């Protein structure tokens, strides 16, 4: 177990399904927190509603389990009231992109000093597999039985456009890189947004011919292309493979941030 003094050992095993990637993301975040050397009294984990948002319940710190989509609004309040606190927000794609989309773009615009870890599993996992704004086109879910016909949200690019100071995207397969990205995000003043694509074998993979956990991980791994490779393909005029998404550090900049500890 990574960071054993940060886990609530009595709450484990957690409620996530077999092979759910959210546990991996908790591991990576806690490894990053341990690397930062934060004190438990000065760290707050905030989450909304969803599978991913159960995560602070397994972590031995003060945490807020808030209303659906409003995790960032609550986290902004925590940071404004107590700027000395280190705020980490766990959120899912349905929580962040659908119902909390407006909070998300405004938190990025204000550049509030916190770390947002988005566990993007492409679906509303907890409520039975409805299509979310990040469901890829053609994917089958319980509300898109003939395949999703709408284009999907690219959350990392949205955060770049909205003005976040640090934006990265990795998958739950790239554990070391994800840990490093979360650590850099925690060190960066201003809003750090890390999108972690995870597998949801129960509600996403089961309907999309990715029934086993290794099949879902392999799908994530084979569809991830590095930012540098994407740029090279664009420069050479070659087509980007279909269904591929970029992974890596998308932006790191030093714009004025809000709520930075003096």
């Amino acid at each position, binding site marked *: *177990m*990574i960071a054993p003094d940060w*886990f609530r050992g009595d709450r*484990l*095993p*957690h409620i*996530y*399904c*077999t*092979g*759910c*990637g*959210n*546990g*991996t993301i908790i*591991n*990576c975040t806690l*490894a990053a927190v341990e690397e930062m050397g934060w004190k438990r009294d000065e760290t707050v984990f905030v989450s909304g509603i969803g599978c991913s948002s159960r995560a602070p319940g397994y972590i031995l710190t003060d945490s807020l389990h808030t209303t659906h989509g409003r995790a960032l609004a609550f986290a902004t309040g925590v940071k404004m009231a107590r700027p000395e606190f280190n705020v980490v927000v766990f959120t899912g794609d349905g929580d962040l992109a659908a119902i909390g989309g407006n909070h998300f773009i405004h938190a990025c615009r204000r550049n509030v000093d916190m770390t947002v870890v988005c566990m993007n599993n492409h679906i509303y996992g907890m409520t039975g597999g409805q299509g979310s704004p990040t469901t890829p086109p053609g994917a089958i879910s319980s509300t898109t039985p003939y395949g999703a016909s709408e284009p999907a949200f690219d959350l990392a690019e949205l955060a770049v456009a909205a003005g976040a100071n640090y934006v990265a995207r990795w998958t*739950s*397969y790239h*554990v*070391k890189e994800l*840990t490093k990205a979360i650590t850099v995000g925690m060190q960066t003043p201003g809003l750090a947004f890390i999108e972690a694509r995870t597998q949801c074998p129960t509600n996403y993979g089961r309907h999309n011919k990715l029934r086993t*956990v*290794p099949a879902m*991980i*392999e799908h994530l791994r084979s569809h991830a292309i590095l930012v540098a490779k994407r740029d090279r393909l664009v420069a050479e005029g070659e087509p980007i493979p279909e269904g591929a998404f970029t992974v890596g550090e998308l932006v790191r900049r030093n714009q004025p941030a809000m709520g930075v500890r003096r």
Partner: protein
Amino acid sequence: MKLVIDESRCKGCNLCVLVCPYGIFREGTELNSRGIVAPVLDRPERCTNCRLQALYGRMLCGVCHMICPDQAISWVEEKPFEPHRVEVEF
């Protein structure tokens, strides 16, 4: 150090089987008392962390430890330590 799987936490997703570079984890065949097919360890003394963690004083590979969604994989101290011959295949 000794590699152990905590069977009270493991849910049998076999992600460790996928990521281990030494192929130490093998898919299990028997149900345990919780009704879960947990992976079995094939010569765990080949694991780089088991052999060299004490020498380097830090976590070495540790990908299985990191990717395990159920926090079930860990290393425990072996006592008393018995040196034994280890064959590593490359």
